[in-house]
């Protein structure tokens, strides 16, 4: 929903605001406000609106779900979200490391590393091909059943993070690989011609350029990862989604899900905007580079 002002070649172009100068801005703002107002009025007047609002957007329920009350059998979604954030941060760091190792091994050419290359390839195929929820169940319920001292005595959140790392590292390693392949072969030739060994040229010449190229797709995967931390609730961890479920179980009101959804949006939308910003900046830089 964007208004198109009179064509103005000098105007700055923004994907959200559209083209046009001051006049364009006024037009787009007006049309946005009008459209939003119409949507709100339609929502309020639609048949069943009262019931929908009561069940999903009841302010009292939303507040109670947000702050929680353990005596009544439900937990604060706000606090539960903190677990999602911690799981996300730990998983992200481990994924970045594991995926890089896998990608570098798969890109290696030395004959001695062949067995590692085979293992890495099989791992990526399997971890990408199996549903994430299956990996979560297999580890979350399977590891405790092993009755091994350290492996079987962790919290559900730890198993959940392990499953997320296993699954996402496979995807992210492919992103890394695409990035490594995006660096022109002549850069490898230049590095090796100076006598730099394979790993040194990877470390100082190839990877820094590769990672710059893959930051947007990496962030995209992390937006997805932030949401998928909710799946760990299936193992019994009180994360935001689980807390919302417990609230609805106790009160038969589903406003708690709206709270959890809003909290997830507050986490993911800034990351999405940041990704857009980086893509736009990258495009500008490429254009500037091509102009030389």
């Amino acid at each position, binding site marked *: 929903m964007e208004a198109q002002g009179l064509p103005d070649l000098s105007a700055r172009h923004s994907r959200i605001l559209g083209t046009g100068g001051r006049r364009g801005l006024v037009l787009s703002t007006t049309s946005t406000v009008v459209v939003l107002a119409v949507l709100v009025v339609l929502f309020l007047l639609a048949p069943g609106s009262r019931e929908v609002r009561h069940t999903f957007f009841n302010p009292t329920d939303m507040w109670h779900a947000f702050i929680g009350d353990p005596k009544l059998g439900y937990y604060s979604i706000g606090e539960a979200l903190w677990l999602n954030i911690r799981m996300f941060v730990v998983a992200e760091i481990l994924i970045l490391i594991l995926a890089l190792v896998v990608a570098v091994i798969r890109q290696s050419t030395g004959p001695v590393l062949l067995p590692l290359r085979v293992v890495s390839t099989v791992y990526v195929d399997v971890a990408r091909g199996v549903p994430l929820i299956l990996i979560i169940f297999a580890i979350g319920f399977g590891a405790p059943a092993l009755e091994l001292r350290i492996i079987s005595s962790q919290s559900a959140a730890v198993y959940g993070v392990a499953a997320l790392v296993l699954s996402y590292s496979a995807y992210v390693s492919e992103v890394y690989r695409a990035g490594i392949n995006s660096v022109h072969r002549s*850069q490898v*030739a*230049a590095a090796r*011609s*100076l*006598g730099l*060994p394979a790993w*040194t040229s990877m470390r100082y010449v190839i990877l820094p*350029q590769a990672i710059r190229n893959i930051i947007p797709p990496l962030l995209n995967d992390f937006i997805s990862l932030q949401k998928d931390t909710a799946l760990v609730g299936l193992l019994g961890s009180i994360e935001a989604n689980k807390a919302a479920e417990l609230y609805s179980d106790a009160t038969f009101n589903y406003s708690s899900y709206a709270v959890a959804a809003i909290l997830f949006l507050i986490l993911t939308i800034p990351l999405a905007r940041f990704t857009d910003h980086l893509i736009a900046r990258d495009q500008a830089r490429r254009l500037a580079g091509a102009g*030389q």
Partner: protein
Amino acid sequence: MGRTGQDASGGAWPGFADPADALRIEGLRKSFGAHEVLQGVDLAVAPHEVICLIGASGSGKSTLLRCVNLLETINAGTIWLDGQVITGPGVNQNLVRRHIGIVFQSFNLFPHMTVERNVTLAPMKVLGLSRAEAAGRAAELLGRFGLADKRADYPDRLSGGQQQRVAIVRALAMRPRLMLLDEVTSALDPELVADVLDVIRELAEGGMTMLIATHEMGFARDIASRVCFLADGQIVEQAPPAQLFSQPSDERTQRFLRRITDAGRM
């Protein structure tokens, strides 16, 4: 490994049998798929010699240089650097490459590093120089080639000619025994060519042994101790420039030089 100097064919050039050759190539063959680009190249380069390789596009000049730098795996033949075999199994390629500098047509500077870092990376990581030592070496070379004020710039801020001079400095910082120049002026705007050629001329005067693939016939005539004409995957004729350019003996050389003259490039 059965090849020695004794059964070398095509040893027409007197320097060929000299054991003190800086570089010696015998029976070099290289194919890409079914296409054999080099079909038995023999060449001997004495220390301080400047060899210019000329020939049509696709005649194998670049491939020959890349083979000498071990960037391409050769299919047959032997290459010696200062009397040591550098091809075949058991050769430490990284060690060999330290001693052979190569400069590419498209510069291939590292775009994410400053000029100084481009120049100091290999001396630090390969030769183990300290940051200060490497920076000193870089400053000296950059100063010598008029790039002192570009030290902290990134490559995309430089003109093509400046980038190519940085690429030469980057190779020189390793103090190579042999420099390979692969059509280093072909990607430059005409007004920037002279700067780069001056740098190469200075290197030649300083006694650097060089193997230069070039389309600049005037430059080759000026600077080369010997000019080699490549065609059909072989060196079909080699002679000092005065002789090769005025009295080419091979029919293919004559045809090539006539085309160059007709195009107004001589």
